[in-house]
């Protein structure tokens, strides 16, 4: 706790001096016996000034005012007595008493000001509060780090002139698989660990990726098309430190005339920079996905070691200098055909990456479960903009 006495003085406080003293002090004595003698008037003034100076607070000053400047005060009586004086003395006495009363009222005003200032200062001291303990009457809540991360990714895409599309979580099997060239009998379709909706012939699944929105967007919006799709996706994984059955992806799809894998790489580089900082680039590695050809896995440059060898090896990337981000490639002709787009004229690329993974790397989150549990202490670590 701070010391209340250290409270600073308000500016402009009058100096604590004896200025109230009479300028005429010690200037001779008045004739005794006359109420209007210089001496007696001077004595009344002296008593008044003393009483004023003695007043310790505004109430005391009020008393002094009553006694020495009130209707029944000696100076008031003296003033009244002037009327009874011979004509030629009136002027001198009037001047004498008037000056005396002026001095007293000046002193009163000065003292009044001093005491008011003292009172104000005291009140401020008394009202002081120690504000060094954090307030928390109504703490702010927070957005979830995953939604904010997905928004940041979406914003980066919007910055490149793309639009943001969305689609249903419970999705038609055709959109989730066949439209994306996942043949019913292809092992890749089985490897998706799909949640199926009952009955089996319903033809519905929980979307295993945000990619069905590729097909929906192509069918609904046509080409040329530049859309990114953030959203919730599902696989039949048990929750553990690195897996969750419910997760989020950001999908990108660009179809236009003359788009190439170089444009794919450029887009990923820009997004990697937006998420992980200047100079963070992407890397493509050959891979296989049914809905792209050529296909690639994409990595982004480790933003901790930036690919420079360290000892011990970088913990973030395991010393490889790269961090896996997702899959991508040139959109398969069969996808374009399924969506009524002429693959001889239009071509383009698609990519998809995990929002969880992006957030975990950005913020050093080691355990997937913290993203899922909804513990407010987890949220509270982050700001509203991350």
């Amino acid at each position, binding site marked *: 706790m701070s010391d209340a006495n250290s409270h600073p003085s308000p500016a402009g406080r009058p100096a604590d001096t004896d200025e109230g003293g009479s300028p005429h002090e010690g200037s001779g004595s008045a004739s005794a016996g006359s109420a209007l003698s210089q001496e007696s008037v001077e004595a009344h003034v002296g008593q008044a000034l003393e009483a004023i100076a003695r007043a310790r607070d505004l109430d005391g000053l009020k008393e002094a005012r009553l006694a020495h400047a009130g209707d029944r005060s000696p100076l008031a009586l003296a003033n009244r007595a002037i009327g009874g004086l011979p004509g030629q003395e009136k002027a001198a006495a009037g001047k004498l008493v008037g000056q005396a009363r002026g001095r007293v009222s000046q002193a009163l005003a000065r003292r009044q000001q001093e005491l008011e200032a003292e009172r104000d200062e005291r009140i401020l001291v008394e009202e002081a509060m120690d504000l060094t303990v954090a307030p928390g009457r109504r703490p702010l809540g927070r957005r979830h780090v995953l939604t904010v991360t997905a928004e940041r990714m979406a914003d980066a895409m919007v910055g490149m002139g793309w639009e943001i599309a969305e689609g249903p979580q419970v999705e038609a099997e055709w959109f989730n698989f066949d439209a994306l060239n996942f043949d019913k009998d292809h092992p890749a379709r089985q490897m998706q660990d799909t949640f199926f909706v009952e009955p089996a012939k319903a033809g519905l699944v929980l979307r295993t990726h945000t990619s069905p929105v590729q097909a929906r967007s192509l069918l609904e919006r046509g080409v040329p098309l530049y859309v990114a799709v953030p959203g919730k996706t599902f696989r039949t994984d048990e929750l553990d430190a690195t897996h969750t059955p419910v997760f989020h992806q950001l999908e990108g799809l660009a179809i236009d005339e003359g788009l190439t*894998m170089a444009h794919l790489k450029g887009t990923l580089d820009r997004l990697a920079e937006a998420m992980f900082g200047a100079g963070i680039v992407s890397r493509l590695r050959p891979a296989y996905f049914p809905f792209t050809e050529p296909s690639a896995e994409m990595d982004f440059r480790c933003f901790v070691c930036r690919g420079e060898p360290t000892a011990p090896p970088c913990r973030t990337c395991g010393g490889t200098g790269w961090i896996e981000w997702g899959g991508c490639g040139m959109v398969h002709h069969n996808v374009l055909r399924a969506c009524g787009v002429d693959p001889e004229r239009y071509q383009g690329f698609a990519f998809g990456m995990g929002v969880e993974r992006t957030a975990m790397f950005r913020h050093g989150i080691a355990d997937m479960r913290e*993203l899922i549990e909804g513990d407010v202490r987890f949220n509270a670590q982050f700001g509203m903009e991350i």
Partner: protein
Amino acid sequence: MRVPVDWLGEYVTLPEGVTGEQIAADLVSVGLEEEGLHTSGVGGPLVVGRVLEMTPEEQKNGKTINWCQVDVGDANGSGEPQGIVCGAHNFAVGDLVAVILPGGSLPTPQGPLTISARKTYGHVSAGMICSVRELGIGEDHDGILVLPRLLPAEVVARLAPGDDLIGVLGLDRETVEVNVTPDRGYCFSIRGIAREYSHATGAAYTDPASLPVDRGEGEGYAVRLADEAPLEGVPGCDRYLARVVRGIDLTRTTPEWMARRLTEAGMRPIGLAVDVTNYVMLALGQPLHAFDLATLTGPVVVRRARPGERLTTLDDVDRALDPEDLLITDGGERVLALAGVMGGEDGEVIPGVTTDVLLESAHFDARSVGRTSRRHRLSSEAAKRFERGVDPDVTAAAAQLAVDLLVEHGGGSADPAVTDADQRPERPVVDLDLTLAGRYVGVDYDLQRVLEILRLIGCEVQGEAADRVVTVRPPSWRPDLTDAPGLVEEVARIDGYDKIPSVVPRAVGGRGLTHGQRARRAVATALAGQGLHEVLTYPFVGAERFDELGLDEDDPHRDAVRLANPLSDEAPLLRTALLQTLPEALRRNVSRGSRDVALFEIDSVTLPAGEALAPVPGVGEQPDEEVLAQIRSAVPAQPWHVAVMAAGQADRSGWWGRGRPVDVVDVVGWAHAVADALGVEVRREQSERASFHPGRCVDLTLADGTLVGWAGELHPTVVHRLGLPPRTSAAELELDVLVTASDHRTQASPLSTHPPATSDVALEVPRGVRFSAVEESLRAGAGELLESLELFDVYAGDQVAQDRHSLAFRMHFRAPDRTLTTQEVNAARDAAVDRAAQDHGAVQR
């Protein structure tokens, strides 16, 4: 796929001293992702030691240890004998043993153990004499490794104390594990991996399948391909090659080198016949099957299953066969195997019994094998390969290699006759415009280079660079290459993805976020600003949750989409409201010590679309509009909702004073904040909703009566059943309704700068009259001069009749163009009171 490095080196020239790590990195560059690197885990110095002295010393614990002096040559730097304490007794002075010196390391289940000189049993033991178990090369528990008992005499003869043992014991062997994508069946073989390694590095590749193959003389064992119901027009088997080996002794042990390779590749050595077929499968990617020839009574007939047929497969499961299953049968009757998936008990090769073997090397249709494997939930190494595509041209070489190995290691002799039922179709060709590679990848490939790469990966190309368009026949091991982009991928992959430049495309220009997207962000930010935390709960619920929430039997919220394969049988349904899954998150916070918790979630919920089924018309073709419409309409409606749930304190206690528990007014306020954030005016109507306190629930509606949602305090019974803190309050709103209602441009009204006038009225009304109704009457009566009003006090008690209470309203009046006179204000107020009196029998106090 596990690739032992020395095996790989047999088919492709590896650089001197190459590490597994480097090989893995090279394979990554052509698309074989590293899954792991397997090593012995033993780190040197591990050297030959000769035991010079051993002194048994009995210890206090009754154990006897040997204090040994061991000659390790110059390996310890001094040449002096090394003092080592050893607890084993299975050796003698003069024996050659394996000694790990300080600085070396041994694998343990807990990770590598680094050896150091340490004080034990009264001596400084400078190293360890190792057992086979400690070195990870055997399971023998009976003491330490005495080298002549393990190694061939000629090897031991060359060993001297101090010699490095890492290489001698094969502890430097490495196995690279790579992930094979489902389009690359041929990479489930060392042959395929070696070819890819050659593509990645340019190393010289020798195809292990180019070995002299017996063409056969005379009639072989009869084979009939009799698939009468091909799937999608593709016969289940287009090549069946049979070889016979007679008089073999299958009790002979598998040669050590083969057993080791199998082990390193992840397969357990079982017996000579199985080991040889597995070895050939790993080497060439061709699954083989061996039948006991003596048990066969007729020709091998490959056909589809008949209704009612059954087979007990080698994993001891009796299976009902499906007419789509392709079978290997004895004479067309007795079922011997599920083709390409797994054999049955009949015809099984048994060591010590079987002497004559019929070897099957066949090519089965990927689709057929895949369906059978999935139908019977029966995955096997063979099925995995066939499903992903096996080279139909490797059949004869694989059979030859297996025959050679069986004869070499099992004795016996191969029949000269070879059966090769060969109905392979001609491989399709692809017309390729060579410039497509550059136009697709964005690299300015030289057309000559494109041709070169295509030929490198095994394509036959007709035409030259000058022709621009050439005809390409992909190699037999690449059934995945069926179109031009697929060939382009090969060019990009072999030339290197790292050559692809980075170019940000110029998008056509978007319109930014949609109103709905921005609206959801605004709502989330508003709620977080009010102190609520956003959570993302799993959407899975069980019917029990509906009971806990007190939903009636016919409550529409019970009508939920059900999953066929839920993670948990307790939660097979998809939530129809967010409030159904928020309780767990609230409870978890409370149980972790956070008592004051206000949560919100924004997500879509799933409302069943009815009985409609979504057609699944297949790949590569746009369905017609009608089918697309059916697909779309079968997808359940999934409107966006927002829900809040809170318990504990709204205003916290602290040094500033006492707190205030969260109550239903807070929750109604938050629900309002959602609407306010979107600039939508909502009305409140007292309501009774399942899950909520019957007297503390309010519906929120748009001005036109459209329901937005509701807010209230949860019913005490619901709170109790869900284990929530007392007085937990909650709200759920249909965000889409608010988003639609807010999708318009608000027009501003001018502000009056004239002073306001305030007038208070206290009205006695019957208790049944809603506050909002009185408020509405006052507004209506006061007219346009009324700027705002608020209910600031409610009084019930001695001063008013028991069935009535007094409501104190403060009314603020203001005119746009003048300062109001007292008379004007009083007149407006009186009009308001009159209206309330008229509507509700209100009496001014």
